[in-house]
């Protein structure tokens, strides 16, 4: 998550960044083989466990095995439509196999599959102001066209519907939620962008180390144009919605927000962080020694401010 976004959450824009609730729906579909079945269920269980331990106010629903039918999924989606409000966040995570016939993407679940068109129907009726949809199945790129929407963060494990091999993206997405190294800005929160970067890079590293041709190329889409971005193509300034979408929190970073005595220090902290951001932005126009000097001074003061906050 970008620090500037996080700070504004801390101080001012509670309505935007601290939603009343986050609705999580995680579904692991049909494995087809015992090995896949076990893997999908275990990844979903990991996600469920991590989310329930998160410091966010969350409503967590996880469907696995025989429970993950179309009727059940329809029900929980409809519930979310009914329950969510404009200040809420909504996260849908689908794990398993998918298919794409050139028209419809289908998520493979026990009984009749559910199509992207039907999923879009529910998602488009959601009132949740912020939505994250993560489809981690084979052929999930096929769902990009129907599920894209401006303001919705959409992650798919494959670049198109024609990447049909079983994916490993879900394994690393689940891992991202519990590996502290996924929290690259160390703000004790994992954003959708951090999780995407982690899972996409780890997936690529998996194929590289196995000397296998990568059969999945995860994409991130949030503009509604349908032009998904690969992790390697993400440039500064791209993925802003995903960067501002806090998937889970851990640690005690937000505790300070509640202490009125520390508001002044928090304000100073935000100010320093903004100055650091600005300095980094100006780096190219400065000499290296001058940049280092100013950065060191700001970082030192920030560290002292944090030390005072932690007392």
């Amino acid at each position, binding site marked *: 998550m970008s*620090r500037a976004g996080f700070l504004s959450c801390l101080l001012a824009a509670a309505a935007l960044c601290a939603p009343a609730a986050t609705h999580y729906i995680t579904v692991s579909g049909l494995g087809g083989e015992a090995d896949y079945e076990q893997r999908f269920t275990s990844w979903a269980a990991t996600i469920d466990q991590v989310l329930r331990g998160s410091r966010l106010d969350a409503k967590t629903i996880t469907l696995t095995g025989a429970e993950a039918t179309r009727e059940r999924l329809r029900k929980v989606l409809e519930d979310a439509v009914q329950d969510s409000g404009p200040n809420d966040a909504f996260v849908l995570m689908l794990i398993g196999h998918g298919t794409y016939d050139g028209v419809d993407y289908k998520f493979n679940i026990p009984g009749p599959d559910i199509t992207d068109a039907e999923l879009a129907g529910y998602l488009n009726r959601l009132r949740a102001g912020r939505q994250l949809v993560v489809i981690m199945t084979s052929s999930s790129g096929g769902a990009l066209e129907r599920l894209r929407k401006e303001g919705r963060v959409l992650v798919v494990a494959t670049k198109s519907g024609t990447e049909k091999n079983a994916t490993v993206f879900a394994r690393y997405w689940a891992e991202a939620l519990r590996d*502290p190294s996924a929290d690259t800005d160390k703000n004790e929160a994992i954003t959708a962008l951090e999780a995407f970067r982690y899972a996409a890079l780890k997936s690529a590293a998996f194929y590289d180390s196995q000397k296998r041709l990568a059969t999945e190329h995860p994409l991130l889409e949030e503009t509604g144009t349908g032009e998904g971005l690969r992790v390697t193509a993400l440039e500064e300034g791209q993925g802003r919605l995903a960067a501002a979408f806090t998937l889970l929190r851990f640690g005690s970073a937000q505790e300070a927000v509640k202490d009125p005595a520390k508001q002044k220090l928090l304000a100073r902290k935000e100010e320093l962080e903004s100055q650091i951001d600005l300095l*980094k932005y100006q780096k190219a126009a400065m000499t290296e020694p001058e940049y280092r000097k100013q950065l060191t001074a700001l970082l*030192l003061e920030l560290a002292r401010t944090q030390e005072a906050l932690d007392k």
Partner: protein
Amino acid sequence: MITLRLAGLLSLAALLSAQTLETCRQSHRRGNLEEADRCYLALSASKDPYLRAEANWALDRYQEANEAFKEALKAQPKNPDYRVRMGYLYLYHEQKQDAVDLFEEALAIRKDHAGALTGLAAVASEGFDSAAIELAEKALAADPKQLDARLLLAAIALEDNNPRKAVEEADKALQVDPESLEALALKATVDLLDDKPGTPHLAAILKRNPAFGEVYQTAGRFFVLNRRYEEGIALYRKALELNPRLYKARAELGLNLMRLGHDAEAKQHLEACYRAGNTYPSVGNPLRLLDSYKNFRYIKRDNIVLKLHQREADLLLPYVEEELRRAISAYEKKYKFRLDRPVQLEIYPDHEDFAVRILGMPGMGALGVTFVNVVAMDSPSGRRPGEYHWASTLWHELSHVYTLAATRQRMPRWFTEGMAVYEETATSPEWGDRISPPVILAIRDKKLLPVAQLDRGFVHPSYPDQVVVSYFQAGRVCMFIERKWGFEKLLDMTRAFGQLKTTPEVVQEQLGMPPEEFDKQFLAWVEEQTRVTVEGFESWKKGMQRISELVKKEDHDQILKEAPAVRDLYPDYVEDGNLYAVLADTHLARGDKKAAAGELERYARAGGKNPASLKLLATLLEEQGKTREAAEALSRINHIYPRDEELHRRLGDLLLAAGDPAGAVREFQALVAMKPLDQAASYFSLARAYRSAGRPEEAKEQVLLSLEAAPGYRPAQKLLLELSQ
């Protein structure tokens, strides 16, 4: 070696009713190259497409030659001779399958066509396939005067390091055609390889054809095959002085200059070939590789030059440099001399790039290759984790640098390979290739070669795994000599080979027995060494099946009861499904972590390379409080697959905890070099290590980098405050 351009001509010439073509050829063979060109130029306007094809080929107009051949075949589809000649054109252009198709089409027209059989033999010979001998002999059976087949047999004998047979075959060729310059060229090559100051054959050739650069081209090829690259290069230069249009010689010159690191000149020669239409792989691929060198970083330090790909240079440099220096230091002591030039070590992350370096070389290990003082290797990142021990390969290749330098590259292949294999295990018993099933079967089936013929196993293997078996055998021969006579004896043999003595002579003089007696003693020793595994191999296979069934049933008691005995039948088996891992898993399933660690330690000592197993061992040791042993377990992976963030992070932490901050700095530097996703934590770890190593300024620099990536990172903030006090 005979040149493809002329191959097949003599037998066919008599059949062709083209006096003008013969006139052109005669001019060429007398060395009147300009006259020959004028003749071919006139012939290239002939109405006869076959004559146009031959003329255009002689004028290096390959496309036109190809088109004319097609026309000739259309006009005379049942003419096998045309197909054979066209096949040779394709072979010249390294389109082997097209050449094979044409030779086989010729044989379909005439089943015993000697030229076509020779063509197939030539194709096989290019790939160092021992089938070439059989095919050439078939050609000679069909036509005892098939000169090219005879010349091929002579060349193959010389490739096998059997100069006596090569001369015999060349003499037979001269009986067929006393004017054969190619036969004389082979005899001249034998003399040159033998360091004879003068050879009468060379003078005889140049008297008949002063432009016959092919004699030096032939010699150059054999010098290169004998790893005498610098002399080979000099010979190719002489070939081009006599005839600048010998593009195959020019391509070889370019390739070998590239091998020795003379990239600029190499490029000039290869580009000249390419511009003249020689666009085949042995020209195009080295040119592409040379172009890619802009992506490599050259690090020059006193007696070493490292050439590493930019994307992994920072990661590999500390490990590779340390290991290279350690190996140089060890070999200087063992071999008692210092190299007269720096060692250049090149590491290729893309195996295809590395493959270009070994283009046209027989029996080369697929992992590394040495050209005088230049060592080229696969990068660990080019292989799956656990497949490849790069440090072992480095020591192997560097051994070649020393043994070949000690003999000025005059050493039979089997001995230099044997020494290199021996040195891997001498460095660490965990290193080097383990005894593999093909080796077990070769010992069981008595397929090891007599020492005097061991080169043949490398150059012209007669069964698919013979190269692997020959590496093993050569290594064990050296080990046997070292055990029985001491390492000094290997040095004595090295010196004797440097005096160009043959293997039988060296064995007799240095070991005091005829080669046959040596073979007897060696076989008895190696059979005893491998007896348990060879005799128990079938039982082991059955045992593995049985254990596999027990694993499926999760019958832990029975696995623990039966698996150790099966494991000990073939303790070198450390590949997928090895019983060390099975036993460790079983112990873990029963909650016995100590026993699991013991089993994995046994696995590591047996040469196991799977990083996941070694990491598990480290975890178990760490849990037992054995920090130093855990660090040792992880350190092994640095020699196998260092491109692993988790490895460096964990090892750095362990070394820091074990009081080795210098080691921790190295590991965290590697972590940072990998540009991990979590940059803040990586810089912070390095900062901690620097601080422990008493390097506060560097620590502060790293902690600032950490905070630049994540300004709110509290542990880094605390460290910054501490360092700033």
